[in-house]
């Protein structure tokens, strides 16, 4: 399979140079430590600082906040190269700012941007996004967490769950209902909630995969949040959340096909080395076909994602088409991941069931990719409506 080591219509010299930086950084600073972080259930704060020093956190954010104002392909480069480490937990927690911060950067006041975005981009603070509630994740418009105005504060009460980086986060972008009278998508707003706000309780959740990422259940009990921490206009949260989800899905597509590629490479190396019945496994036709099917699915998902990014950057399509294709890309890429993780473990035989191979870990991380950031079913519903089906 081709590597994007040389410039193309999608990647300029700068993209290629940054890819090289991130790849070397991940090889040295991440790969050797993954097992320790998986055991610890979280990433060390020092990693955020180191990542910030090479510009890995500020990729797409404006320069005045310490970012690099990179384009969407620069974000794809960063996402692919982090995912190459083969630990979804690393990708999820190191990348939780990519879902938590954009609403604040795009719609937040100067004060909010200085107080929260600048230190996150500098790797000094950790950001998270809290939309999902115990009562429902897919149906965002049904969220129940309330924020009631009381003088200069909102008083927040409610529950959020499955929140990535939720244990460590210093700033949490929380979707709340600011207008108790409004039903559905109206009356939803985003608030920036400081991690040390009195009344915020966090409970750690244990899970099937993504062990290097801390995931939390958050309870808000009469949390007083300054009115200044309202992100954008009151009631504009739903629209902001939807656009945010769309970018998350593009990132997840890139993450999924890259992790699928990690499985493919591990299985290929194994099949070429492993001798059975007098020859390498890679000489058995059935194994060869499996490997080709894997490569083909990865290629399809990757090419689709690049095309979506390219057409978006060149403003080729109406938003609905972009949203529909992004949804389809996430489903396509996570299907490729599902298939490749399964086949890689199969090709590795008993070894694929043992801790220590990337494929074993990734196999446990398939499901969160088909559920988080929009389930397969919800994304197909969305694509159908956007395509006018």
């Amino acid at each position, binding site marked *: 399979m081709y*590597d994007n*080591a*040389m410039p193309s219509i999608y990647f300029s*010299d*700068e993209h*290629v*140079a*940054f890819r*090289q*930086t991130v790849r*070397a*950084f991940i090889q040295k600073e991440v790969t050797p430590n993954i097992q320790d972080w998986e055991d610890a259930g979280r990433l060390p704060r020092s990693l955020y600082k180191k990542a910030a*020093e*090479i*510009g*890995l956190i*500020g*990729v797409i954010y404006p*320069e005045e906040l310490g970012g*690099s*104002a*990179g384009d969407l392909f*620069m974000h794809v480069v960063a996402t692919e190269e982090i995912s190459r480490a083969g630990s979804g937990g690393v990708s999820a927690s190191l990348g939780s700012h990519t879902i938590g911060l954009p609403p604040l950067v795009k719609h937040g006041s100067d004060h909010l941007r200085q107080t929260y975005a600048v230190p996150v981009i500098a790797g000094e603070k950790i950001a998270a996004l809290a939309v999902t509630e115990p009562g429902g994740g897919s149906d965002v418009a049904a969220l129940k967490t309330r924020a009631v105005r009381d003088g200069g504060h909102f008083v927040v009460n409610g529950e959020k769950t499955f929140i990535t980086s939720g244990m460590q986060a210093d700033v949490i972008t929380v979707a709340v209902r600011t207008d108790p009278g409004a039903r559905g998508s109206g009356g939803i707003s985003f608030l920036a909630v400081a991690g040390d706000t009195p009344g915020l309780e966090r409970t750690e959740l244990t899970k099937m995969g993504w062990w290097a990422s801390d995931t939390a259940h958050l309870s808000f009990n009469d949390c007083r949040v300054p009115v200044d921490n309202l992100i954008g206009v009151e009631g504009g949260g739903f629209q902001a959340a939807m656009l945010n989800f769309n970018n998350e899905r593009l990132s997840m597509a890139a993450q999924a096909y890259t992790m699928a590629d990690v499985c493919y490479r591990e299985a290929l190396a194994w099949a070429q080395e492993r001798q059975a019945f007098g020859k390498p496994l890679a000489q058995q036709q059935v194994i060869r076909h499996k490997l080709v099917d894997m490569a083909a699915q990865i290629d399809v998902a990757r090419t689709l994602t690049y095309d979506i990014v390219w057409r978006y950057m060149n403003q080729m399509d109406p938003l609905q088409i972009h949203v529909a294709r992004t949804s389809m890309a996430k489903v396509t890429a996570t299907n490729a991941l599902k298939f490749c993780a399964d086949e890689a473990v199969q090709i590795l035989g008993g070894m694929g069931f043992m801790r220590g191979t990337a494929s074993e870990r990734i196999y446990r991380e398939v499901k969160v990719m088909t559920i988080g950031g929009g389930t397969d079913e919800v994304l197909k519903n969305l694509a159908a409506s956007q395509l006018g089906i």
Partner: protein
Amino acid sequence: MKVLVPVKRVIDYNVKVRVKADGSGVDLANVKMSMNPFDEIAVEEAIRLKEAGKADEVIAVSIGVKQSQETLRTALAMGADRAILVIAADDVHTDIEPLSVAKILAKIVEEEQPGVVLCGKQAIDNDMNATGQMLSALLGWSQGTFASEVDIDGDTAKVTREVDGGLQTLSVKMPAIITVDLRLNEPRYASLPNIMKAKKKPLDEKTAADYGVDVTPRLEIVKTVEPAERAAGIIVGSVDELVEKLKEAGAV
């Protein structure tokens, strides 16, 4: 003080090298190329000199094909201030020999008047290990090779060298040519903000003819071959068996 750092574009050290079918060399078409790792160490050292206030400008030079521009951009992204690209070949397979490189560098040194030239000890593509030494001879400057530690103080530099059996420390008179070894420092990553900034830093384009240097090769490559395949190993059951096998093989 200016610091001049020559950087070479070489096949990336992660790439599995393939020999061209006609044995004339290594296939470099559509292969990932990077800065020679020893040159990265030289660039890093130069930037540290600047950060320590001992140098005020770092100039990177590359001599070769036009694509060496990418290598120079890497040096600029690491922190070099400006770059000089000397185009001396069209075909990516053409290697400019150390003497020609040293002659061009000598001319650039005359023009730029750096206080020190920091080179990699050798390039990982053909391991010549000659350019720095030749440049020193051409200029009549002192040289400190295989540096694992460099301490520049006014008109002398202390250069610690890794030699067989230990470390040797030389005191060399400035200006000097210093060639750097693996353990001198750990090069920094080119950060994204610096990659973006590097786009705007000056990069002068010259040709070998501008310096009046004839780069026609003097060396002839007779043959290039792949290393012999390693024969399969065996697993021995005990130390005794290992000793037995080594004796059989005449190794002990």
